[in-house]
């Protein structure tokens, strides 16, 4: 481990001269070392386990890796450098006064994300966790006043989550007598729920997910990419950790299923209406976490009903989805970053015709969109395929009480999947196709190769893992064994992966055939769009993003909280007609905002601490941790 982290720490040096280039290189290097380490753990038997004895009250601090954390570690160590790479170019196009501090916080965030995976000692874990939240907060704020509110909201939410965690850990400690995670096996319900809730805050599960749609649009794109594709996964990692150590009753599983499906539905219903590109992506993160959660529930259900097939498929689906999501979500955030850079807006109703203006980004986004709406030929499909199969297996279950949650998963998944497809088709169609809807879109330009680099890598990854899902399966194999799942079934799944790939090959072959035939026998020319031969057609004569989902909106009205302003036509000779509607997050407006308003007002007193001086930041953080420590010691 040491080398990797040392290199990552070295990465801070270039920041002193604001040389983000070297910074990225060092990050690549360090991550390479770490990746090697994680792979070792994941694939060979070798176990990394260090014990540092610390004075009481802390006790022995375990710093170790298991298959689970190694799995996440691999994701991070692959994803972070790409994020940094993108950030490098993004910052070039989109410079900030406080580049140095931003890089520093970025580094701290990355390192602490890795750190979280290593810590086995709940207090130390919590400290690193806090460090992670804090650094990510500063990354979001990005020394911009307008981001401050969103950032603070994020920080507050994280603190509340941390409080839950702390309470959970503390109680767990009082009951088991050890701070080490090994003490979390077969926990009592109370601490377990506290901890789960605490992690849920980070993972972005309804109703405590309101920070995502706030923070992501505000944050610079590389940060939102990293956060949404990796940082929130730490929360899910925590959840999985607890789940791997405990058994659950059927009723608990049912409740989890319900929560996750509601969470996903809530997210997708907002996704349908969202006009801000990055906020839409944030919502879809919540949706995907929900889907992964449902997969886990399917797995647990399988355990409970002792259907090894279902268990296997369920967990397998969950891991795959986590893995894939971290790929395509990062890709989409980086592309949306590029769009922001070249158009200067995130409102899809101001875009249009981008696919013609920025053909490369258009193609890449298409891939991302297909992946995120789980269409075949992309990786998103295979994970959902596995989850669907898991749910379908439940049809063999004799008992109705197992069947119902499985059915819920099945229907929810299908419904949410369909809605997500619609939502993303809408986004792509409105933003990338048709005629430019505003001047900004009119003179959009493709970016330099650098900003497109990491997008390209990720797109390749999407297609590769999509067309040959076997790769991804092989990657999570040890993890599945670690969860001691039935390996025959795994073999069966592998076989299916190959079958699906072969089906894809047939499709591609056919498509190629048709394509060639068409090329040979078709002469094509271009003309104006057929608009009933009206001489002058305006860009306004295309369906707006809201029109597009209107039939559904009419149907899902009860689930959609919206505020509208309207000037109706007084017939028959009106002078003015207007209509606007907002789809604010209900939880946010009715619950969180009033509360957080108070807290953030209080915290604004400390806005001064954000003075761009690195050392003062660190001092602040350390001070915070000390206070925390004292607080915890109080329990003994």
């Amino acid at each position: 481990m040491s080398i990797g982290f040392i290199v990552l720490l070295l990465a801070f040096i270039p920041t002193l001269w604001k040389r983000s280039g070297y910074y990225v290189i060092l990050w690549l290097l360090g991550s390479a070392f770490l990746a090697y380490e994680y792979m070792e753990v994941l694939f060979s038997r070798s176990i990394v386990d260090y014990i540092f004895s610390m004075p009481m009250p802390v006790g022995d601090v375990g710093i170790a890796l298991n298959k689970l954390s190694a799995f996440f570690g691999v994701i991070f160590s692959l994803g972070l450098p790409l994020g940094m790479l993108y950030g490098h170019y993004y910052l070039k196009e989109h410079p900030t006064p406080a580049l140095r501090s931003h890089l520093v916080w970025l580094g701290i965030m990355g390192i602490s994300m890795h750190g979280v995976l290593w810590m086995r000692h709940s207090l130390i874990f919590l400290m690193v966790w806090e460090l992670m939240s804090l650094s990510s907060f500063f990354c979001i704020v990005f020394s911009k006043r307008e981001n401050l509110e969103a950032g603070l909201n994020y920080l507050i939410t994280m603190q509340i989550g941390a409080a839950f965690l702390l309470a959970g850990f503390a109680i767990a400690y009082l009951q088991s007598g050890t701070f080490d995670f090994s003490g979390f096996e077969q926990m009592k319900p109370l601490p377990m729920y506290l901890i789960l809730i605490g992690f849920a805050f980070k993972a972005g599960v309804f109703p405590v997910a309101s920070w995502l749609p706030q923070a992501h649009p505000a944050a610079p794109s590389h940060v939102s990419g990293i956060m949404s594709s990796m940082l929130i996964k730490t929360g899910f990692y925590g959840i999985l950790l607890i789940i791997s150590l405990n058994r659950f009753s059927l009723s608990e599983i049912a409740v989890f299923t319900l929560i996750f499906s509601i969470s996903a539905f809530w997210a997708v219903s907002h996704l349908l209406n969202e006009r801000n590109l990055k906020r839409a992506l944030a919502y879809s993160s919540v949706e995907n976490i929900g889907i992964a959660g449902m997969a886990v529930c399917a797995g647990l259900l399988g355990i409970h009903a002792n259907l090894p097939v279902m268990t296997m498929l369920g967990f397998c689906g969950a891991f795959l989805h986590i893995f894939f999501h971290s790929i395509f979500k990062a890709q989409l955030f980086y592309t949306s970053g590029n769009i922001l850079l070249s158009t200067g807006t995130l409102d899809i109703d101001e875009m249009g015709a981008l696919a013609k203006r920025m053909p490369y980004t258009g193609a890449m986004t298409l891939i991302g969109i297909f992946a995120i709406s789980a269409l075949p030929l992309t990786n998103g499909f295979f994970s959902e395929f596995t989850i669907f199969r898991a749910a379908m297996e439940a049809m063999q279950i004799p008992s109705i009480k197992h069947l119902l949650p499985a059915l819920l998963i099945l229907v929810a998944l299908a419904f949410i999947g369909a809605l997500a497809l619609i939502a993303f088709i809408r986004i792509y169609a409105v933003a990338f196709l048709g005629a430019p809807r505003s001047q900004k879109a009119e003179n959009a330009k493709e970016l330099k190769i650098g900003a497109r680099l990491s997008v390209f890598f990720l797109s390749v990854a999407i297609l590769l893992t999509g067309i040959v899902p076997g790769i991804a399966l092989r990657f999570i194999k040890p993890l599945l064994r670690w969860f001691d799942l039935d390996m025959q079934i795994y073999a069966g799944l592998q076989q299916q992966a190959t079958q699906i790939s072969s089906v894809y090959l047939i499709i591609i072959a056919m498509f190629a055939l048709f394509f060639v035939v068409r090329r040979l026998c078709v002469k094509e020319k271009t003309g104006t769009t057929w608009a009933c031969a009206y001489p002058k057609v305006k860009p306004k004569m295309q369906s707006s993003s809201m029109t597009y989902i209107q039939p559904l909106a009419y149907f899902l009205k009860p689930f959609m909280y919206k505020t509208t302003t309207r000037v109706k036509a007084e017939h028959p000779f009106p002078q003015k007609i207007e209509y606007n509607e907002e789809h604010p997050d209900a939880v946010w407006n009715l619950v969180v905002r009033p509360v957080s308003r108070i807290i953030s007002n209080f915290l604004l007193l400390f806005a001064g601490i954000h003075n761009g001086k690195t050392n003062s930041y660190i001092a602040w953080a350390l001070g915070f941790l000390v206070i925390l420590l004292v607080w915890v010691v109080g329990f003994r």
Partner: protein
Amino acid sequence: MFNLLKARIRHGYQAIPDPLTVSMDPAFPGVPELAESADLQLLNDLCPAKAFSEKGIDLGRCVFCGLCERKHPDMINFTPNNKLATDSREKLIMAPGQKVLPKIEFRLPRSMRRSFALRNVSAGGCNACEMELAASNNVNFDICRYGVEIVASPRHADALILTGPISKNMSSALSETWQAIPEPKYLILCGACAISGGICTGADAIDRAFLKHWEACLFIPGCPAHPLSIVHGITAIMGRQ
């Protein structure tokens, strides 16, 4: 339900068995027969559409108002023969003594002889030709039995069938529609107005420049053109007779 059944039974099988050989009501003014002795100058002075010239009567101009027939039954007589369509402007001029119009030689490419999609543009027409065109696809005349279809989008069309004298305001829309039809494409003129400007000839709100650039492959005279004439003309160029 009972009513519908009753109506349906009474309705029976309405489609004309064979539109190409059906005999017309004697009152219908079809192909005119111009007597050798006809005084064309006299007739032309009489004719509101000025359809007569020294060559004979121009069916492209004639609106079949029957004035000449009523005034001079000895000189001209309109027979109830609906085979009025031809494939060139010249053939529309019937010399004195001529009994029928020359046969239609023009043929569509082979692939269109069983499937032919029309896109109608009404440019200043009086809605009579439009209604007759629509009627030629109704339950009685049923032109779709020959694989002829009237489509919504010019992108799906093989031919543009023009009705009306082309008002200035429609001229740009007309050429836009023509541009929107993929090759190979054909132009059909339906009704006296479309062929020659008819009653509106010379009105300053008319702009027939479009027809200077594009050559029509079928002319269907009449004011309005009778559905059977339309069916006859179109099936002829599809080589279905």
